[in-house]
């Protein structure tokens, strides 16, 4: 251990040499600047790079997104586009029956909305259930707990493309899963070609990829519950089920709420792993909102940036509501901790 860390520090020092020279050179004009503006002028200097990038690539696009959603045509730059008012929104909402996407002008949008809604409900429920059980299991008196924790956490770091390809390989017609099913005496299923199975696969794979992350947050919450509460319950001979409902669950509630909101926010935006796994198919059975925006705005032949912007603003509104919920919950937890 000592060997690796001294090696790491040696490498670090070697890498830092050019940077420290650079830092020294930068210092000369900066001293002059400081003499002119004082300490607080330096604050502007330190903020500038981050805020400049932030302003150009986040704030400015955010503002002109509204303008985009009110223009029509296929032109890319705002100056070339024609103002159409709320036409894009009207088009998105032009439906005789909101539950039947086929009755809408933008049937793809409503298919995506319906798919995303069903996906969010099922995926969040499954995610929280599995994460909670995993956290409870990991919180027990285990040998090698960090090893088991790592096992469940492993897929979290994998890229969505890798996740999608791993499962495409396993779920393909002649894949490992079908082989195991065949060995058990059942008929193989064409997982990614049958609509409902493809949808189930999208849910299962996204849970597989992210459940370790939420289990980790819940585990941290479980470990923060004071041990003496459990000792007291044991003294009183309380049954384990009662301990769970009366001690564990109420004290874990704040963490569970945070996990709920986080899963909701990410679930609404689901895209990459499903896109690689199924490509939104078969048909449109795994087409979700982000993919719809991507297809309409960039990929399809009849590109319609205005429509994509309008759809993204609708999705953004849902996300803002969810995030406000999360921030509110975080604040409530903080004040509770302080008391």
């Amino acid at each position: 251990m000592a060997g690796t860390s001294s090696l790491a520090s040696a490498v670090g020092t070697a890498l830092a040499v050019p940077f420290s020279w650079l830092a020294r050179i930068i210092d000369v004009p900066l001293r002059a600047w400081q003499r002119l503006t004082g300490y607080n002028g330096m604050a502007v200097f330190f903020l500038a790079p981050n805020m400049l990038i932030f302003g150009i690539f986040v704030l400015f696009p955010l503002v002109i997104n509204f303008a985009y959603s009110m223009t029509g045509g296929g032109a890319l730059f705002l100056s070339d586009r024609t103002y159409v008012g709320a036409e894009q929104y009207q088009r998105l909402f032009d439906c005789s029956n909101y539950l039947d996407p086929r009755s809408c002008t933008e049937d793809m949008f409503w298919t995506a909305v319906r798919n995303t809604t069903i996906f969010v409900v099922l995926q969040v429920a499954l995610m929280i259930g599995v994460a909670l059980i995993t956290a409870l299991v990991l919180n027990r008196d285990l040998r090698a707990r960090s090893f088991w924790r790592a096992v469940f956490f492993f897929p979290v770091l994998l890229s969505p493309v890798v996740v999608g390809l791993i499962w495409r390989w396993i779920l393909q017609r002649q894949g490992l899963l079908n082989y195991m099913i065949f060995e058990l005496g059942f008929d193989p299923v064409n997982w990614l070609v049958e609509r409902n199975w493809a949808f189930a696969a999208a849910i299962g794979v996204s849970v597989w990829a992210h459940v370790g992350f939420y289990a980790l947050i819940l585990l941290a919450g479980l470990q923060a519950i004071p041990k003496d509460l459990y000792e007291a319950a044991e003294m009183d001979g309380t049954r384990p089920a009662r301990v769970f409902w009366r001690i564990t669950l109420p004290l874990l509630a704040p963490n569970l709420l945070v996990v709920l909101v986080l899963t909701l926010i990410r679930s609404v935006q689901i895209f990459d792993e499903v896109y690689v796994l199924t490509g939104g198919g078969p048909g449109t059975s795994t087409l979700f909102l982000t993919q719809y925006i991507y297809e309409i705005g960039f990929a399809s032949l009849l590109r319609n940036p205005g429509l994509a912007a309008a759809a993204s603003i609708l999705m953004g509104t849902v996300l803002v509501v969810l995030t406000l919920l999360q921030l509110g919950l975080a604040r409530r937890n903080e004040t509770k901790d302080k008391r």
Partner: protein
Amino acid sequence: MSRAFEFLLRRRGGTGLHWTDVFTYFWLVGGFVLMLGPALWLVNSSFKTPAALAEFPPSILPYVTAETVVQGYDKPLPLYRVTDKETGEERVLAEVRRIGIMGQMVDPKNPGEIVKVNIQDRTPVRSVSFDTENYTKPFTAFDFPLYLRNSVFVTVVATLITLLTNSMAAFALSKYNFTGRSAVMFLIVATLMVPLSVILVPLYSVISAMGLFNSLWGVILPTVATPTGVFMLRQYMLTIPDELLDAARMDKASEWQIYWRIVLPLTAPALAVLAIFSVVWRWNDFLWPLIVLSRKEVYTLQVGLATYAGELNVQWHFILAMTVVTMIPVVLVFVFLQRFITTGIAGSGLK
């Protein structure tokens, strides 16, 4: 084996097996298989030849059918073990061609005479062999090295810029009292709500207007000013005592020197966590690079891999191997730096 599980699952002071113990055991072993199994299966499959990949049922180990060059035939011929029905003698023959259910075979040592064998009576001579061609070929025949280079460039440059700009901003927001500080903080909080997927269209036009379409800088720049990074570093810098900075000012240190020589080294643990996250984020990025990059020369690994896998006539043997290569950096990060990541997440809920 059972002793190993006993070791892993033993409870302190516990005697006897409660149903929750059985369930724990079930969940851990099931989780082990389900979480690691798919990735291991991918790695295992990546060493198989296309013929072995097409087999059903799939074999566990990567087998290769042995072949030999026989005089008088251009191509190497596959070898089969044939048992003679009358004598019970076992011979190794090479198959020249197959007609219906009969295989025409020759003895490699005596290529003149052709023997007809029912295909039921022959088994291929197979040996375990790792097909490394799946790995070497994409490096020479495809743009794979180019994708790899692009991905490394994006990851390294974006992480360096992220660390520098985020730490400077965090320094200003934690160590200075200036008018508008809370407004800046509010702006950063507000944009936590705006994920990239909401501003795709306008961001694309900004990138195009700057001439960064199909440029790796177009991938790097929009992602570097992460609000989470500024937040995390600011929280950490708030714990550095201001007296330290005042002492340095007494000694005529400039503000830049204070940032570079005092605050930055003291923030190293938080910077390390942000660096790890940034590397994983940028390496794994998909949606934004997919939009900005449309020419093969500038594809990152993730885009190149997904595009390649989406083409017709999927060549799985190459895709599997390339997926493994794409996985390697992240697995290394996981193995060596897992502790930083798990504490980082448990502490801040950031991902």
